[in-house]
């Protein structure tokens, strides 16, 4: 932290000093081949915690991937704090961390500490600072004793915590979660739910897990590539559950 102060102030157009103006989707459509995944979605999401729910294949996973440029819109624009995902891809990815449903797909190094350090290596963070940040984040998620263990020996819940640690160590301004609790048992769902709750970053969570949504500022329901409901968690979830039954 102190180090940042000593540096000269970055020029105003530096993406890192942009205000957190939020996520904007302007007439966003996404098609894959003949299949329309999202149709003309327009949204402004300045809220701290946003959840996206909807059935399988509704397009919500694509919506999540649009937010850090893993998927680029085939029409319209996606702006994250004013940065266009199509033209400022790398800057967007530095701002937006992404946690996947299956932690096994996200862990790329054989041992726990090495994997957490991976993102920092890509950002060319000096080794000393890197080690310190890795140690810190491992402690926060209760993985310190597993630092040198092979990642495949962790439990499902620990693997998801490792995946989250590997993203948060990069200090993103926002985090997008794509069904982070789907593969977990009840205890680990609650654990991951608490982790998300305690984040100071702005979060977007795509989920089937309605228990996760308490305390969210806004919930969107996506169906057939469209946002069909949008509001506070109580009303929206109530509407969604009534519709499903």
């Amino acid at each position, binding site marked *: 932290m102190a180090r940042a102060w000593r540096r000269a102030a970055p020029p105003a157009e530096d993406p890192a000093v942009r205000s957190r103006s939020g996520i904007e989707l302007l007439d966003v459509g996404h098609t894959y081949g003949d299949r329309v995944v999202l149709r003309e979605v327009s949204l402004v999401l300045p809220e701290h915690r946003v959840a996206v729910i909807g059935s399988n294949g509704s397009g919500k996973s694509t919506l999540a*991937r649009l937010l*850090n440029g*893993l998927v680029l819109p085939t029409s319209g624009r996606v702006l994250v704090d004013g940065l266009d995902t199509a033209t400022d891809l*790398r800057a967007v*990815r*530095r701002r937006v*961390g*992404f946690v*996947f449903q*299956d932690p*096994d*797909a*996200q*862990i*790329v*190094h*054989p*041992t726990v500490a*090495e*994997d957490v350090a*991976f*993102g920092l290596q*890509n*950002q060319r963070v000096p080794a000393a600072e890197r080690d310190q940040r890795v140690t810190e984040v491992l402690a926060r998620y209760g993985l310190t004793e597993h630092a*040198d263990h*092979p*990642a*495949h020996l962790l439990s499902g819940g620990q693997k998801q915590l490792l995946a989250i640690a*590997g*993203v948060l160590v*990069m200090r993103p301004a926002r985090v997008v979660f794509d069904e982070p609790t789907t593969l977990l048992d009840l205890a680990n769902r609650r654990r991951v739910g608490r982790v998300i709750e305690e984040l100071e970053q702005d979060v977007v969570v795509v989920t089937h897990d309605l228990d996760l949504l308490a305390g969210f500022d806004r919930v969107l329901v996506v169906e057939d590539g469209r946002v069909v409901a949008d509001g506070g968690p109580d009303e929206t979830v109530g509407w969604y559950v009534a519709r499903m039954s």
Partner: protein
Amino acid sequence: MSTLALYSPRLSPLHRTPAGVKLAALGALSVLLFAVPRLPVAPAALAVVVVLALGGARLTPRQLLAQLRPVWLWLVGLLAFHLVVTDLASGSLAVLRLAALVLAAAVVTATSKVADLVAVIEWLCAPLRLVGVRPGRIGLAIAMTLRFIPLVAERGARIREAQAARGATRPMFLMLVPLLVQVLQLAHTTAEALDARGADDEPPPRPLWRRS
């Protein structure tokens, strides 16, 4: 990558020798042994390797013998073959040469850290730039392979269980199809995760045929 089995951590002069030097010496030894196929050279080389292994690298005789295990049947068979077809001299030459090279290579493996070997491999792979490969990525690729190995094994076991639970009568090898599809999807998500964590911050070199 610190979990590999064949490195043997010790404090010895050979451990301190740079991995590149050891690999170059290994290459030189193999050239020498084949360029000068005379009997005194091979046993002399073997003796030097054993002395270096026990004295220079402080490996135990047991570790050395274990390195010969994969090829001992070959050694015996080769000697027998030459005794029947040619003579003892050429048989001993072939066997001693083989033993010397296998042991020398094993000594390099046992005394070099994985990271150092990776650095040498990256250096050797610099020409692969021409086909669009980033040599600096080789360490990451090796790490990812080691990470994928238990994952593929685990997914394979899971598919076998699922098929057995449904009383699968299909041939066993057809489990390879769902397994491959599943792990290919997994690898695709891994690629997304690599991107999301900034792995493609630097574009790969352009392959030779796409340069103008």
